[in-house]
């Protein structure tokens, strides 16, 4: 079954085509990566999928229903969670409170329940807490639950964000550059964690990543985009040998100077 289908998606800002008639699928239970040079439009694709950008045309189907025009919170409710490229934690709150935010869309207590603190509301609070603690335990930082989020080291802040996304009880998890800023050991742990999320929690993984070693080791399928267009899709080996991909990353031999300029040092 295809959990996510993107058909002919286009997005432009003014005259700039950020995403250009992009189509691809994500199979249920797979680990898929979206790669491309800097500025290729990867994060824009994520923002369209999660409802932060409204695509100009095309359709996004999630679990066989169109989510193209839904607001971000509705999409999360339907089971698609994301992490952000630059950490977006609730910095002044504790780690546990951060992760509890994920359960918001799965619970219902309102103002009256809060004031009366009735049995149902208490049960729900206990449930939110226990799910949040489970998620923290899953990513291995349960011991830090009462620390203030802003005081954690960077690697642990990343893990808080993963736990928070897990707490929304997703079917599909979008990771935006999860390995950015992590050291070698942390990357190894991240890879094990991603596999465990898929195997133990049965969650499909779709990620953007620049670390090619990590992408090639973990993904079952890779989608490559450049200038918002899909230039290749398939297994790791096939994509790595694709001349178009090599060109996008390294440039053609006769315009090496330009390629250097584009990809930076």
């Amino acid at each position, binding site marked *: 079954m295809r959990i996510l289908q993107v058909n002919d998606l286009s997005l432009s800002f003014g005259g700039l085509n950020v995403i250009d008639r992009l189509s691809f699928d994500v199979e249920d239970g797979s680990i898929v990566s979206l790669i491309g040079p800097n500025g290729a439009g990867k994060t824009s694709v994520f923002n369209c999928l999660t409802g*932060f950008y409204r695509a100009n045309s095309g359709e996004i189907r999630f679990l066989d229903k169109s989510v193209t025009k839904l607001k971000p919170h509705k999409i*999360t409710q339907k089971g698609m969670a994301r992490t*952000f490229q630059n950490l*977006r934690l609730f*910095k002044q709150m504790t780690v546990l409170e951060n992760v509890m*935010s994920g359960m*918001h869309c799965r619970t219902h207590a309102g103002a009256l329940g*809060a004031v009366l603190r009735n049995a149902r509301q208490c049960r*729900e609070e206990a449930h939110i807490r226990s799910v949040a603690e489970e998620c923290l335990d899953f990513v291995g930082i349960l011991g830090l639950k009462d620390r203030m989020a802003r005081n954690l080291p960077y690697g642990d802040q990343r893990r808080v964000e993963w736990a*928070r996304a897990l707490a929304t009880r997703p079917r599909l998890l979008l990771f935006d550059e999860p390995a950015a800023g992590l050291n070698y050991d942390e990357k190894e742990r991240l890879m094990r964690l991603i596999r465990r999320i898929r195997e133990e929690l049965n969650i499909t993984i779709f990620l953007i990543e620049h670390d090619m070693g990590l992408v090639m080791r973990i993904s079952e399928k890779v989608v490559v985009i450049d200038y918002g267009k899909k230039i290749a899709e398939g297994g790791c080996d096939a994509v790595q040998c694709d001349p178009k991909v090599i060109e996008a990353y390294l440039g053609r031999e006769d315009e090496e100077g330009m390629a250097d300029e584009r990809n930076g040092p």
Partner: protein
Amino acid sequence: MAGLEERLFVFFDKRSHRRLVQGLLVLVAVLIPLVGDSYLLEILTNSFFYIVLCLGLNIVVGYAGLLDLGYAAFFAVGAYTTGILTSQFDWNFWLTIPAAVFFSIIAGVIIGGPTLRLRSDYLAIVTLGFGEITRIVARNLKELTGGASGLIGINRPSFFGLELSQIHHYYYVFFILVLLAIFVSFRLQHSRLGRAWQYVREDEDAAEAMGINRVAIKLYAYVIGAVFAGVAGCFFAGKMTAISPETFQFMQSATILMAVVLGGMGKIPGMIVGALALILFPEVFREIGSIRMLVFGLVLVMMMIFRPQGIWPERRN
């Protein structure tokens, strides 16, 4: 100063210590009418009234992080509901409270619905406009509100046959209102809803990505804040027995907001300290004459420079 703060933190970390101080404060507040004169009671009753308003605005500004410059509008809705229903339709005072709650909710939804889609500065401007609109409507709906001269002859509430007419009656009425407002604020703050407000305040996009409907959550804060002001407005009308549109000027909204910022946004004890400081400062320094407002202004500016988080300290890590 820092050392003292540290020691206080350690002291208040213990639940039993907190309970003890809270109990003593309540006891002192209950006993004051036995010794205080009516001047003191009048000032304290007024402070209690502002504490309730501050706690209400704190839900909007402190918890949800929305800058509201027209809060007096909701206070006006409550006061006019009681005023009109008792003086023109002869309702019992107590029955006007549910009506005021109802109209406050309606007003909150009408004002909040379209404006809460806006972000920060724009929201402040629009709420400022709505605050003024409410006051001008009250001045011009002559048949209902009595126009610029306002309403007189509002029924005083009575309690089991005792008409509440003395200042110490109102002292206790507003004191109970304060306790109720603190209780509701505290429960809201430590709930799913309270956390959602804080998520939206800290990072709207991240909150939205976590499945939180940011417009609905803000509207919730706005409406609950409106209900606080509406109920306070009922008792204000009952105590004064006369109200006029000039009570609900922009200065009123600004004063409440000032107390909230002064005390420390988002903190319940901060609201109490802020409202008390706001009301007591001009009274205590009455001797230095009209210059006292200038001094008060200077103190506020100094506060914002040296302690922008407000009088009450931040929670520790």
